[in-house]
């Protein structure tokens, strides 16, 4: 079964780039434009990994993550930050807030999926 990934990203180009790369690796990608949409998507289906931009309109990545962490069903769901914030402090802040991983933009297209792969359930790793 293909890994299902929720991509939370307000920038259309970046969303397209990531989707392209992930689908190229055989992932199923669902889009959300901000945190609120992400929560709605999480209500309706299950995902293996969430890739989440931090700076977004309406509800940013941190707030969204807080909500996710309050939902018992998806407490363990890995949520990776994919952000243009580039400093060590930003990375630290994100990890402390509970993001499982931190990917800096611009992403390295050669390494992108590899960086995500380790967070996927065992069954999906081989692909």
């Amino acid at each position: 079964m293909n890994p299902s990934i929720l991509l939370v990203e307000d920038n259309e180009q970046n969303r397209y780039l990531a989707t392209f790369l992930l689908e190229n690796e055989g992932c199923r990608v669902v889009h959300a434009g901000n945190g609120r949409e992400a929560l709605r998507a999480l209500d309706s289906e299950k995902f293996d990994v969430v890739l989440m931009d931090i700076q977004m309109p309406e509800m940013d990545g941190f707030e969204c993550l807080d909500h996710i962490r309050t939902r018992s069903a998806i407490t363990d769901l890995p949520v990776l930050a994919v952000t243009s914030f580039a400093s060590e402090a930003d990375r630290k802040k994100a990890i402390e807030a509970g993001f499982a991983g931190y990917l800096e933009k611009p992403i390295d297209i050669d390494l992108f999926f590899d960086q995500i792969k380790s967070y996927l359930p065992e069954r999906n790793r081989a692909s």
Partner: protein
Amino acid sequence: SLISPSRRLTWLLMAAVLAVALAAAISTYSVRQHLARVLAASDQSAAEQVRGVAGSIDAVLRRAIVISGLLLLPLLTLVIWSARRQELAWDQAQRNEKSLVTTLRSIGDAVVSTDAEGRVMFMNAVAQRLTGWSEEQAQGRHLRDVVRIVQGGDNKPMSDLFERVVATSEPVGLATGSRLISKDGMEYCIDDSGARMREADGTLGGIVFVFRDVTQRDVQERALRASQEMFRLISDNIADLIAVLDPQGRRLYTSRSYQSLLGAQENLYLTDAMADVHPDDRERIREIFDRISSTGIEQRAEYRAFRRDGTVVAIESVGSVIRDEAGNPARVLIVSRDITQRKAAEEMIRGTMLRLEQQNIALASQTRNLAGRGASLDEIHHAVTELSGRTLRTSRVSVWFYNEERTAIRCADLFLESTGAHEEGAELRSESYPTYFAALAEGRVIPAHDARTDPRTREFADDYLDPLGITAMLDAPIHSEGRLIGVLCHEHAGSPREWTIDEQSFAASMADILVLNLEIWHRRQAEAALREARDGLEIKVAERTSDLEAANERLTELDRLKSEFLATMSHELRTPLNSIIGFTGILRQELPGPLNPEQHKQMEMVNRSAKHLLGLINDLLDVSRIESGRIEIARAKFDVREVVNEVLASLSPQANAKSLVLEAQLPAGPLEIISDRQRLFQILLNLATNAVKFTDVGRVSISAQLTDGKLVLAVRDTGIGIKPEGLRHLFEAFRQVDASARRQHEGTGLGLYLSRKLATLLSGTISAESSFGSGSVFNLELPQFPEPIA
């Protein structure tokens, strides 16, 4: 005698009774014998008669014996009883006599007794000692030979001692002031008395003469009398008023002088001494008196008292206690003095002193505080010369100061009393007046009463004194802080003048006042200058501080804005760069479909440019963080070998593309260091990237070695090298060796600048060596185990 008289009597009585009884018995017996013989020769009847008589005689005899026995018994009893009593009394008397003799022998007084003829019978030890006679020697001699008593200054013998005692009925002291001359010529003052001894029948039995040595007492009494007399004489004749008071303050004794001054009553005995004290002082004096009499400590007091005539007198008294034999204060001796005149004199002197002092104060205040009131130097000089000139009535007063070389004195002010004018500027050179300068240098006032002949000032005669008609000079040296700085000159014209001691000391005082003012003036100047400088400085510092604070605030704000701007820019630039780099990468990899070679090349260029832009943004962010001190340095142990290999790995594509040899020269074994792995990687990558970038042929090598606790990393290349002038600015921001190089080799211009900043953050240094045209070496030196961050 050993047998008492009563006992003797008893024996006698008993013997008498026995004798009577015996006599009676014998006579009776002889009568009976006679009768028996008569009877033998006579007839019956007569015999019968005789028998009858004899029988009656026997009866009488028996009766007599019985009766005498009956009579004798109570008599004997009586006699024995009375004898016993007498015996007891006699024993008592014996004992009394014994003890009396013992007493007489041991008492302190001399005792001599005589018989009725005046011959010595008994002398006790004291009498023996005083008279020089032993009892044995004296016994039997007449009293007058043994006890020689004289009277008066001419040692006239007293009338016969024995006769006088005998003539006196009562025991009586014979004379006072009599003296005893001892056998060996010693002389004693004695008190004596004598008494007759009577026998039981009233006849003279002898006399007892008692005397004692009062020599010592006599001396003391005479001394006491003499001292009493002396005291009376003294106290009556000295001016001090003497009184002896009892502890209640009542007068026991007052001297004549006392009586003539104080005391309202005629008889002062036992009157209260406080009555004479002025009521305003009375309480105080009473307290002092009580203190004297209770503590025994001498006290002095001044107070007012009333004379006999009621006028007030000033008294000074000293009170001390007279102690009794037990040492307790018994009486108080007051020695007083009329100090009315002294008080008046003191008052007068005080008044005079006060006036003088006020004059001095007035004088000093005119001049002393000139400087304090802000006078100029000239005003100070003028005030001093004018005051001195007018006070000493001298025609010219001048102030002179040494020049710096001390070769001359220059006139700072000359006051001409006649016109009231001031001049200045004259100069006297020491070489012209050597004697005067030498005298001046001694630092004492020079009173030249006759200036023309005085050796110290006659040098001035021709060119100075004579033309001006000056006859006397009074020069006072001016000292400041122990150093002679000048002279205050007084010049008198007209008749010669003798400067008095007062005038000389006044001149010296004026010199002192001048110096005082000068010192105050200088201090005020210095203070003013200091104040001005300080005020100016304070204002400047305050201004500068506030400028700096404002600037600092602005800078801080600007810095914050800059960082914020850079962070925002970085974030905003990354978002589009993400898709540019991402999509060009995807297209270049021909994932969506194949590209022709030209498209591929162009896609490559876009991708590289975007990556360069990203590098620029990253470097800018790093520089900004370092400069604002917001960068965090990690500290962890790692192996440098790994870092070097990672750098080589990430550069190998570029190196391979240029056919360069890329190598590491590392010693065997681990290269452990405590530092920030990420930052070290960044620096090393930066240096190696540059090396690859600027090398077209040859090799790039990274070597590492640990020496003396330091890790030295060297990045060598065989590239174009750097010119010496380029080396100087190598690590500055946005510098590249030359414009052509920048064009040829794209770089952010921040790489080396950032590398050096990072190296510094890691407590290390970075440096470069190069020979232009043949290559460069960049050395990075880091401590292997840096000091912990404070």
